[in-house]
């Protein structure tokens, strides 16, 4: 049944939409993440916990939980032995299956290196696969100082998981050490990490559940990660940053916050990063224009030019707040040098749901929200001057944008990005019958001003 939009904005998914899309915490690390999530948010639907440690299970605030190996281990955990954990799961397979029945997608959060997480992850992924569930694994890998054994176990686990899961993100605990103030309270450190992972899972899930414009599909993510995957059991293939902001400047503030996220302090993130996934979460008030500003500002402010896969999600309880989560994918220890000087206009990939051209009333508001973006940053301070140019400058029409942070009152600009997804294929029109003209990866049939992201006043 097509539900018609009331007014502007997009429809946020109801909690009931999430049934069938689970976030599963495995092992104490996974359970901790989920706990943190519940503590932060008011209501998070469809969470499940599995562990072998009775204390963890008893203490968790997650509703759906299961203690595994109660009989064999007597609730004492598997003592850091993944083999044991694996055995347990295999024995209790049918129970686990029963619990996981009816799911469509699952995000598995687990800590690797220990027993339960490492041992169970693979089994769980396999079970889920059998049930036809799409699986994303978010794995937390050990600190460097935890020793070879744990690291080795983690690596084995990663390799095994990669074979079966649709997508695997590995976030390293070592990031914590690189945070400023890493001699902070241990609990604080971990809770920061947990919070981050939790957010990431929420956003990932929302990406999977939500239908609407600017959706990032699982296949996109998969391609992005697979493209840069060296195939080795790397313990770290993504870095996460998070920021939230509210108020008038929220579009800019949220980007500033994200980029100053403690986990991005380490320069290695940017030198090893190969792509960026930006997921913007906002309430019903989130407009296309705002999304546009966020992404543009992000692109401007990122220390390195990387391709961005961007999308929006609607989380139910966001109110006025804008949240941006940034996943930088890459390979730690990657040899390739990153180009440091910024070059103009990288590719920006916008995914629209309606690739088949079908747009339901539910997806699109009747007209795009009237509110103009709060700041349109990429504005030339003096358009007149820029057009004519000084003879000395060669009169570049679209020369380097001014770095000054002056605000310009928003004018009604032709927003190419909005148009892009609506008429993605229309520019072919005249050239539909002929071969496309590709040159250095660009489709020359596509209007030049579009490819250069020039703003056109109408």
């Amino acid at each position, binding site marked *: 049944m097509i539900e018609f939009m009331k007014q502007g904005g997009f429809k946020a998914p109801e909690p009931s939409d999430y049934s069938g899309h689970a976030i599963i915490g495995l092992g104490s690390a996974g359970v901790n993440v989920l706990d943190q999530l519940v503590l932060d948010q008011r209501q998070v639907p469809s969470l499940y916990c599995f562990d072998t440690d009775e204390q963890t299970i008893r203490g968790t605030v997650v509703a759906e939980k299961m203690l595994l190996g109660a009989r064999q281990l007597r609730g004492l955990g598997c003592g850091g032995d993944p083999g044991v954990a694996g055995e347990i799961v295999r024995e209790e397979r049918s129970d686990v299956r029963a619990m996981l029945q009816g799911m469509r997608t699952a995000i598995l959060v687990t800590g690797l290196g220990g027993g339960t997480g490492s041992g169970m992850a693979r089994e769980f992924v396999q079970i889920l696969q059998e049930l036809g569930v799409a699986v994303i694994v978010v794995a937390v890998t050990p600190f460097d100082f935890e020793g070879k054994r744990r690291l080795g176990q983690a690596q084995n686990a990663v390799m095994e998981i990669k074979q079966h899961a649709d997508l695997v993100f590995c976030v390293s605990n070592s990031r914590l050490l690189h945070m400023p103030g890493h001699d902070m309270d241990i609990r604080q450190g971990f809770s920061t990490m947990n919070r981050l992972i939790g957010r990431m899972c929420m956003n990932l899930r929302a990406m999977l559940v939500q239908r609407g414009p600017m959706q990032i599909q699982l296949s996109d993510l998969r391609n992005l990660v697979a493209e840069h995957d060296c195939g080795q059991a790397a313990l770290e293939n993504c870095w996460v940053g998070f920021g939230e902001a509210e108020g008038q400047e929220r579009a800019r503030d949220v980007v500033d916050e994200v980029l100053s996220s403690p986990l991005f302090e380490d320069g290695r993130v940017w030198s090893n990063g190969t792509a960026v996934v930006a997921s913007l979460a906002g309430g019903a008030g989130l407009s296309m224009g705002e999304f546009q500003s966020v992404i543009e500002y992000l692109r401007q402010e990122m220390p390195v030019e990387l391709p961005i896969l961007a999308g929006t999600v609607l989380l139910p309880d966001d109110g006025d707040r804008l949240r941006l989560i940034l996943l930088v994918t890459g390979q730690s220890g990657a040899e390739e040098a990153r180009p440091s000087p910024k070059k103009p206009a990288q590719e920006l990939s916008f995914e629209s749901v309606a690739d088949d051209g079908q747009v339901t009333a539910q997806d699109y508001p009747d007209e795009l929200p009237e509110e103009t973006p709060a700041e349109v940053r990429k504005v030339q301070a003096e*358009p*007149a*001057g820029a*057009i*004519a140019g000084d003879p000395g400058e*060669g*009169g570049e*029409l*679209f020369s380097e944008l001014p770095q000054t942070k002056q605000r310009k009152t928003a004018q009604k600009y*032709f927003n190419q990005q909005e148009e892009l997804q609506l*008429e993605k294929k*229309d*520019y072919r*029109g*005249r*050239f539909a*019958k*002929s*071969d496309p*003209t590709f*040159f250095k990866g660009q489709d*020359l*049939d596509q*209007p*030049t*001003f*579009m490819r*250069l992201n*020039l703003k*056109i*006043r*109408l």
Partner: protein
Amino acid sequence: MIWKKKESYALTVVDVGTSKVAVAVGELKPDGSLVLLGVGQAESGGAVRKGEIVDFELAQQAIQLALADAEDKTECMIEYVYLNLTGAHLEPKVIRLKTVIDTEDNRVTQEHLGRLDEELENYAIPSEHEIIHSAVQQYYLDNGMSCKPIGQSSETLEATYHIVHGLRTRLETLFRSVMELNIKVVHYTLSSYAAAELVLNPQQKKEGALVVDMGAGVTDYLVYVDGTVAHTGVLAVGGEHVTQDLAFGLKLPFRSAELLKINHGNLYANPDRPNERIVLEKEVNADERSIFAESLSRIAQARVRETLDLIREDLEARGLWEQIGGSVHITGGASQIRGLQRLAEEVFPVPVRLVHEFSLEGDQTYSRRPDLSTVLGLLRYAQQYDQLHARPSGFDRLRRSFQEVLASMRLF
């Protein structure tokens, strides 16, 4: 048409282009000079895109109309024509071939030159391609370059050829479209050659020059270095792309955008009047619309600059700019947009000359028609070919006779 009348010939050339089919008829006088009799035209109507035929029947209709128009204007019966070729599928190459001189005294003979030509046939090109043009750039003997190798002594003979190969099927389509109208094709050439013939004099060819022919569907270009053709290229971007960009960016139908471009098109907006608006032609049942002049310029400039940049970069990659002592000569329908001189001067490292006027003998109504650059150039080319054909000499001998080309395409 090779039709004798008082020992004059009439030459007819046909340019099947993206916006129109043009047929030019000229009279070749006994003294070798050419007088333009008239040009017939017909709109291509979508049959040709980016210089290539996409709708065969429609293209034939257009060609027929254009031929009829030309016959009307010139009172000639057209039977034989020259064609022009273009298309992004055309690939230029410069190749170097070598042969050993095995005669007594190591004297170079005509036969050796012929042998090199034959070797050209063995040159590997994609199977679906055909070499449609080849010309010797330079001969080399042991002791260096030679303009007249025949009769000299040398152990080896080398030659550099400039060749262009392209998809056989595209060429067949073009030829068939004309031949099925009972018109015989005498010969053909590349659009870029045609334009160069029109625009350059021998002095300019010697100095070195770049000729750019900006058409509706494609932009052809050609580089002369030291009197020989060093490089040719085809970019499948033309005036229609500018129109399409405008249509898309300003949300106009194609036709309106085209009119806008022709009437108000300018690559640079007036800096003193940043908010200048242009009122569009009022359409029936539509509100009057106006657009910012700045927007028009921005969109158009982006596209044209990109196109010129691509050409410049191509020459840079081949190290040709250093060898061009002369200028860039730009012609073609799409070169009529205001502001092009200035933009081109910004893009190219050598002086720029816009050629919007041709020196012709004969019907002067066409002398200020840069959009006819290709077909008029083709006429010039036909004139030269006709003369050479009668007296084969020099380096412009073509490798294979046209009949052979047709035979290989199984059209004959």
